[in-house]
């Protein structure tokens, strides 16, 4: 019975190849969109997780401000260099501690200028951030102590200001400060959030505070925990130390925040996952629209083929055979559209992940769900037209012009 219906349905669709394809297009696009978006979203999520994992799970970031939610904090007093020194001194099992302050600045060399950010820190910054010098040198303890006007620049800054010229030993102007380029960082490329990690200038913290910021503030303290030690314990130790140093009484909340990379990773992948879900839902709506398209065409087709249905009934087709034929036509259209959509989406996903430089994550469940959903769309939206066809009165249908 089902085999028969399939045979009749396929012959019917073959009679109208172009219309069948156009009908399927809605499903193809719907299924394609769902799979492409989910695949790209999963790829992005995985990339975020991997990149953060590569930074090391032993990195802690201490920022001022009360924690209010992911990525939000309220205003609170800044840290000073002394806070970083205290953490380094009084907390056990640390590898390094780097105080960091930064702000936007326009760097000028000869008649070239470039808007970038300048970061004031100590030589520990390079250890924590896993940055290496490609040419020249990094600043020394004496540079840090004296606050000399020297800087290390990233590859992007070098390219913008110096073009082919060697930068080492040249002087660039950062606002009112003229400083000598002593080192060039090895390129690190784009970060997870799409920012250029080579678009930066690093100066000694003291230089930054005195000659650029004009205050003693430290906006963030990066802490690297020794391998094999619990970041959780270190977080608690730092919390206790900072509460004392910031004179918080027992009933006051922390006005600073110690985040480890795991939390940041969760926060970011949570965001991308949510975006993936949202986009997937929007795409699913287009699948529904595709289903309505199928119903529309099937209804038109039933009207157009009224005489044919009458002939089938006269020849001896049972009501349920006509119903099944039209239902199978709709399901073949939608599931065939689903398969084409899946193939198209996988090819497009491989291409797009390549262009967007995110890993291609093949997600079998979503492919299966999309296929089943498209087949279900055929059943749901095909049933009504099929029932209409099956219930036709053969005499009326044969007389239909």
């Amino acid at each position, binding site marked *: 019975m089902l085999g028969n219906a399939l045979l009749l349905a396929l012959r019917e669709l073959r*009679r109208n190849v172009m219309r069948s394809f156009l009908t399927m297009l809605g499903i193809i696009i719907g299924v394609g969109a769902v799979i492409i978006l989910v695949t790209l979203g999963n790829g992005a999520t995985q990339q975020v997780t991997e990149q953060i994992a590569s930074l090391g799970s032993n990195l802690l970031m201490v920022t001022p401000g009360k924690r209010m939610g992911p990525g939000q904090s309220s205003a609170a007093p800044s840290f000073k260099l002394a806070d970083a020194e205290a953490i380094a001194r009084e907390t056990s099992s640390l590898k390094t501690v780097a105080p960091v302050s930064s702000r936007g600045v326009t760097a000028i060399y000869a008649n070239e200028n470039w808007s970038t950010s300048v970061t004031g820190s100590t030589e520990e910054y390079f250890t924590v951030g896993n940055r290496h010098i490609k040419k020249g040198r990094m600043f020394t303890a004496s540079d840090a102590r004296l606050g000399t006007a020297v800087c290390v620049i990233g590859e992007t800054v070098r390219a913008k200001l110096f073009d082919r010229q060697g930068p080492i030993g040249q002087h660039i102007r950062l606002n009112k400060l003229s400083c000598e380029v002593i080192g060039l960082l090895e390129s690190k490329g784009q970060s997870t959030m799409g920012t250029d990690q080579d678009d930066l200038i690093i100066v000694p913290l003291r230089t930054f505070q005195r000659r650029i910021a004009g205050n003693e503030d430290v906006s963030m303290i990066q802490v690297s925990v020794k391998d094999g030690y619990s970041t959780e314990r270190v977080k608690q130790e730092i919390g206790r130390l900072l509460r004392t140093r910031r004179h918080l009484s027992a009933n006051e909340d922390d006005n600073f925040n110690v985040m480890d990379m795991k939390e940041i990773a969760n926060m970011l992948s949570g965001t991308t996952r949510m975006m993936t879900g949202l986009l997937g839902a929007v795409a699913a709506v287009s699948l529904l629209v595709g289903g309505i398209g199928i119903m529309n065409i099937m209804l038109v087709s039933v009207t157009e083929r009224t*005489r*044919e249905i009458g002939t089938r009934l*006269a*020849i001896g087709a049972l009501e*349920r055979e006509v119903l099944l034929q039209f239902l199978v036509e709709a399901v073949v259209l939608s599931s065939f559209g689903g398969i084409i959509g899946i193939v198209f989406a996988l090819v497009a996903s491989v291409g797009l992940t390549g262009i967007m430089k995110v890993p291609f994550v093949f997600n079998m469940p979503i492919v299966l769900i999309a296929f089943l959903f498209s087949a279900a769309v055929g059943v749901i939206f095909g049933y009504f037209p099929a029932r209409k066809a099956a219930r036709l009165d053969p*005499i009326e249908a044969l007389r239909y012009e």
Partner: protein
Amino acid sequence: MMNTSLIELRGVTKTYGTGTAAMQALRGVDLCIAQGEFVAVMGASGSGKSTCMNILGCLDTPTTGIYHFQGVEVGTLTRNQRALLRRHYLGFVFQGFNLLNRTSALENVELPLIYRHFSPATRHPQARRALAQVGLTGWEHHTPGELSGGQQQRVAIARAIVTQPIVLLADEPTGNLDSARSIEVMELLTSFNRDQGITIVMVTHEPDMAAFAKRVVHFRDGLIEKDHHNHVG
């Protein structure tokens, strides 16, 4: 059952609509058709001949009266049972051919066999044989659009006889054809009646076509006005 008739109508009436809008299409028709007859049904439009054909074809049921087909009372059957009756015992030829367009002659002829759940191995040769019987060998893969009207009607006849029905019901089979094609079609029908003993009931307007039948039944105002046998052949 005692009667020898293949088809027996007794006091059949058919009323469409209800109340004042009611229209009585048949007003007590008695008709017996025996196995192997070739009956032409004539009458003006509105005379009730089409309604009678629909009832004979088990597409419709009488309002009152009895229709026995091979001794089975059709009026008591369900829609599906009547469909099965049509599938196994009846063949239909229509004025407008009613072939599936963009579908080859062979596939059109196969259609009733598909509904009989025949395997491809049996239905292909059977459909080819039916096409050969109507003289369309070599045209199996042409679609209706590529065939002349006469050829299309011959495909339709092949589709009707491929299941070897007991009764062939033809509703103005020559209505859309010129006289030469009409005569070809009538000769085909006559040969099926003569050689295979298929009972044929055919509605027609044209006395020339009715002349091919052995018996002519005239309808007028929902009743049989005249029922006589031709002595031509």
